[in-house]
């Protein structure tokens, strides 16, 4: 299936929860999705007979200046087709439903996005920092992040 067919099918099924299909050459076309119904959409994409997106090849966080985003790269082992989903949330209330129970590989990916961008994945069973120390303050990959002066008494800047 090509992206337009997948988009049409999703639109038919979920209506307003699917916002738009955007062409973004040279990168893949992506489908903008409403975060509220993300779990239903992902389950549908995984289990529907002619889609079977059984593999989440990447999940990453983004800082879009005013908002935060999460990108999902899906792949179907059976049909060899791909699709990209994007959700956007505000920085004040960065809650996104977790897809960790749908694709188990999302477990550490979501922890990484939480660690570096501060996206909170609701329903994740163990949402703790994965790369930084547990007592680290702030989310380092955000654009407005300031390097701390010291960490546990060790000077950080050069």
């Amino acid at each position, binding site marked *: 299936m090509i992206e337009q067919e997948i988009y049409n099918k999703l639109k038919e099924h979920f209506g307003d929860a699917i916002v738009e299909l955007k062409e973004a050459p040279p990168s893949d076309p992506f489908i903008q999705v409403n975060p509220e119904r993300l779990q239903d959409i992902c389950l549908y994409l995984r289990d529907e007979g002619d889609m079977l997106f059984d593999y989440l090849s990447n999940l990453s966080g983004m800082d879009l200046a005013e908002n935060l985003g999460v990108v999902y790269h899906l792949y179907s082992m059976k049909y060899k087709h791909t699709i990209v989903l994007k959700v956007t949330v505000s920085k004040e209330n960065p809650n996104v439903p977790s897809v960790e129970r749908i694709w188990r590989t999302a477990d550490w990916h979501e922890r990484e996005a939480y660690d570096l961008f501060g996206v909170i994945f609701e329903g994740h069973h163990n949402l703790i920092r994965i*790369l*930084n*120390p547990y007592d680290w303050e702030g989310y*380092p990959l955000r654009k407005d*992040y300031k*390097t*701390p002066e010291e*960490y*546990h008494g*060790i*000077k*950080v*800047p*050069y």
Partner: protein
Amino acid sequence: MGLLNKLDDPYYGGGIILGTLEDVLNWGRSKSDWYLQFGLACCAIEFMAVNASHFDFMRFGCIPRTSPRQADFMIVSGTVTMKMAERIKTLYEQMAEPRYVISMGSCANCGGPYWEHGYHVLKGVDRVIPVDVYVPGCPPRPEALEEGMIKLQKMINEQAIFNKRKRLREAEEKEKSVSDVVLSQN
């Protein structure tokens, strides 16, 4: 006396070498240095090459130890993150004295490519533990690390064992008197 007769050529025939006890002890210490076996980043790949047969680190008498209690020196091979810095400090404190540190590669020396935008990288391992030998490179060639090892052996060979404090004091006084002379001349 056989010994006195052969003073001009102490190696002749009898296999007698004259030297101080300190030299002999230092010679033994420098030729059997055991190191703490751990690697941090890409420098560890070069470090592994040093251990393998082409470069053969063991000919320096270096044997990897997995416990800091048995190690004489540690090679900080790679990027030291903030998270790792505290662990390295703990490992260093667990090593028995005399202990030495070789800082390998730009990251361990001064932060390397992370010096400006690396919020998570310690800008030089000498901020948490004292370093004896710095090996530059990104990563250093195995020959460079071997050169560092030879430097460390040289350093150990020149170390004082007996009357340490007295000799240190004497050296300090000597330095001071020299600087006094220089100051008075100016």
